[in-house]
């Protein structure tokens, strides 16, 4: 999130103000378009200044997004966006720093930076556009591709199991983790707004369709006609219940959670979602409900817990020391070890 520090009224903006003059160059039909639109439509509502907003990305199809936002932006190198954004956010707490990347960028080559940015809880909003494939290099499996997947680099079927980005983020101590998908603009905007409002690192996994190399990877659960039965909408303080008739729900079982028929267990047995729980175990259990985006899958905010934000904690350490020892003075610094006169 964010930290606007001026008290002046932020001038009103429109979607067009957030669109850069660059031609958008994703494949026609790519899920990235709707994500970009969701963002550009949301920004005026957030009441922020364009000049105080920075989008940082790595490499990949998703990483082109900063070019299309009329804000400050850096299209950096593969995997490193969270690291670069960390330095920027620490140096400039007055900025809203967004990180955009795909599953290869953030979970493969940049996995180390992602988990540490989350662990530190540095104030950046990370949008992980997960299409379960390498798009820009034309169709190799990614760390979120399902086992068995046949791609150009796994012609006999992928052997390894995929990451579950939400589980991974929770394991990395993330204080804010959410999931959404590219076919539901309103839900995306709600998740992006929540990420923006969260103090600390926030990770939003966006199921994004790559219609060229992995078309329909999420359609089993995200298409309009199946959504009600396949997406489990997590709402803070509400029972976790889904299905066109509200006929399914989530209950605790054996230290984890599972899906049950409401008719069998009764409404009272349903788990009430608490995203603020300090202990991430329940959030983690929820992230394990679906092995992949093919069975009923939770979306929404898994966790939004309070933790100390790294940048401001560091800034107050710096300020405290400065207050204690006074402003530094080079001449005395050079005399801080034993000296003698000649």
């Amino acid at each position, binding site marked *: 999130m964010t930290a606007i520090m001026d008290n002046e009224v932020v001038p009103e903006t429109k979607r067009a103000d957030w669109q850069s003059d660059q031609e958008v160059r994703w494949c026609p039909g790519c899920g990235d378009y709707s994500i970009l639109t969701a963002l550009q439509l949301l920004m005026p509502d957030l009441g922020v200044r364009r000049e105080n907003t920075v989008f940082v990305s790595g490499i990949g199809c998703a990483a082109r997004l900063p070019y299309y936002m009329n804000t*400050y932006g850096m*299209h*950096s190198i593969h995997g*490193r966006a969270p690291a*670069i954004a960390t*330095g920027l956010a620490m140096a400039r707490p007055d900025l809203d720093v967004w990180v955009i990347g795909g599953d290869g960028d953030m979970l493969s080559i940049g996995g180390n930076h992602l988990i540490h940015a989350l662990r530190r809880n540095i104030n950046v909003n990370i949008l992980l556009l997960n299409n379960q494939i390498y798009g820009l290099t034309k169709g190799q499996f990614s760390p979120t591709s399902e086992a068995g997947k046949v791609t150009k680099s796994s012609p006999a079927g992928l052997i390894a199991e995929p990451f579950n980005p939400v589980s991974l983020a929770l394991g990395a101590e993330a204080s804010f983790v959410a999931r959404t998908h590219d076919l539901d603009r309103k839900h995306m905007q709600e998740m992006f707004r929540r990420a923006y409002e969260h103090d600390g690192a926030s990770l939003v996994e966006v199921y994004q369709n790559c219609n060229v190399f992995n078309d329909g990877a999420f359609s089993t659960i995200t298409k309009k006609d199946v959504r009600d039965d396949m997406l489990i909408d997590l709402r803070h303080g509400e029972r976790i219940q889904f299905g066109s008739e509200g006929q399914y729900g989530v209950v605790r079982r054996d230290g984890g959670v599972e899906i049950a028929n409401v008719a069998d267990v009764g409404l009272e047995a349903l788990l009430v979602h608490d995203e603020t729980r300090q202990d991430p175990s329940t959030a983690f259990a929820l992230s394990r409900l679906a092995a992949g985006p093919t069975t009923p899958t939770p979306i929404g905010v898994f966790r939004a817990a309070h933790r100390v934000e790294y940048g401001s904690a560091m800034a107050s350490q710096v300020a405290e020391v400065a207050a204690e020892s006074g402003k530094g003075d080079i001449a005395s610094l050079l*005399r801080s070890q*034993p000296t*003698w006169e000649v």
Partner: protein
Amino acid sequence: MTETATEPTIPAVDRVIIRFAGDSGDGMQLTGDRFTSASAMHGNDLATFPDYPAEIRAPAGTLAGVSAFQVQISDHDIMTPGDAPDVLVAMNPAALKSDLDRLASGGTVIINRDTFEERNLAKAGYDYNPLEKGDDLKGFRVISVPMTSLTKEACKELGVKPRDADRSKNFFALGLVSWMYSRPVKPTMDWIDAKFGGRDLVVAANKAAFGAGHIYGETAELGDQRVIVKAAPLESGTYTNVNGNTALAWGLIAGGQLSGLPIFLGSYPITPATDILHELAKHKAFGVTTFQAEDEIAAIGSALGASYGGHLGVTSTSGPGVALKGETLGLAVSLELPLIVINIQRGGPSTGLPTKTEAADLLMAMYGRHGESPMPILAPRTSVDCFDVAIEACRIALEHRTPVMVLSDGYLANGTEPWRLPDVDSLPPIKVTYTTEFNHKNADGEDEYWPYLRDENLVRSMAIPGTPDLMHRIGGIEKEDGSGNISYDPTNHAKMVEIRAERIQRIKVPDLEVVGDPDADVLILGWGSTWGAITSALGRLRKDGHRIAHAHLTHLNPFPANLGEVLQNRTHVIIPEMNLGQLATLIRAEFLVDAKSVSKVSGQPFTAGELETKIVEMTTGEAQQ
């Protein structure tokens, strides 16, 4: 124990080189450091060389575990910690075995006799006791002292357990050597109080051990060993004793102050660079932020992010770390953002010799990135020079919006020398200008911002995030000169490659100074930490009537404009380097000069003596007229 430094009857010598050697657990670095400080206070010129193993605790008593500290003190200006020690303090058989070769002929060995028992001898690879048999010690003066038992004896009445007393034996050695060289006592006593304050028994034991060593000198008829090294006629001023890493860290802080920018250090622990992170972490009062990143790549990435935000990003590391940072350096070159990379070189490749010195990363600094990716390179020549070079790096990075590589090395990093503190008010400020207004008009005459619009030095415009109206995107993809928009146009790419090369060449660097006999047929060209050894060697050679010129490069990219001229009309251009001839390769390629290299890649710095011999060998007949 009395203050004896000024007794008039003690004969004076002009300099002495002492090497304290013992097991890693024996506290030799601390002992050497204390002796150095006392000598500094006494007014000597000095230079130190800590030489320690990579393992934190190598097996006790083994050769691998030997940790040594060499210091030269003198009554005149010196440049190096000296070649062959005059005195070797060997706290155990392994120390004797590993370091005796270094001792000057006729030198003195001070031995802790108590450790020369069967087990320790075997661990050091002796199948006999050299104190009793063999002729290892022939030709040396041997002072064999039961330091451990005398220390225990001295501590007995204090109620210190023998085991704990054993730990104070380095103070016995220090007391003895301090007596031999008439060092002032008080600074060390004060230091013990300050360092071990609150642990009364430790204070008492260390003082008792020091005293016992001192008394031993007086009573054991070592009188003829006792000398004094008078204060050197140093220029008047306030002095401190500083090592290269500390001076470098302070230079970065000064660079931040001079430019008015907060310093952001992204770093990952690596020997021998970590002390820079430690030092900068202490100085938050200067607005310094230090960030211990998850890896070397994040360290430079975060620094670049901070630079993009208008702070001065710095990352400190050693060779293996620079290898990992290569891709981000390419990005920094392409983004044309200020950034400082500190490389404290060590023996390589790979893990190599983490605690030993080498200067073999010059070609990596010059060429070790994908694509044509030039960046300025600077190398300090002494520990003290690290301060000025760090400021110069800040100046170039900020005024020219470019990553800058500083090549220090393990020898400068840890070696100390007295520093006459500069007048900080006289340091010129560093100009940083960020663009805050539109700088271009589009075809329709509307204002717009072009991030790659350049000034006469080809330095691009930079508007930092937060600047109203000038929102723009930059990235690693090739961009159109001027507008900064993505461009795959072949001609534009060719132009950008040339601009990136040319803008580094346009950085103004001071002309190369030639010292010694500037017009001599023989030129010794050096860079980095070889300065001390070269200067000492040439001093001796010139005394013997050789005519030799010496030039030493601080700026390795771009080279000083007069370098070609300096190289001209020499019969010999000799380049001593702690690598297999990397500067020589550059010089030969660029200037078509038949430069010859003198290499040393043993993890040890050059000694003046070996350079002297080498230079005579290479120039005989021609240099001596």
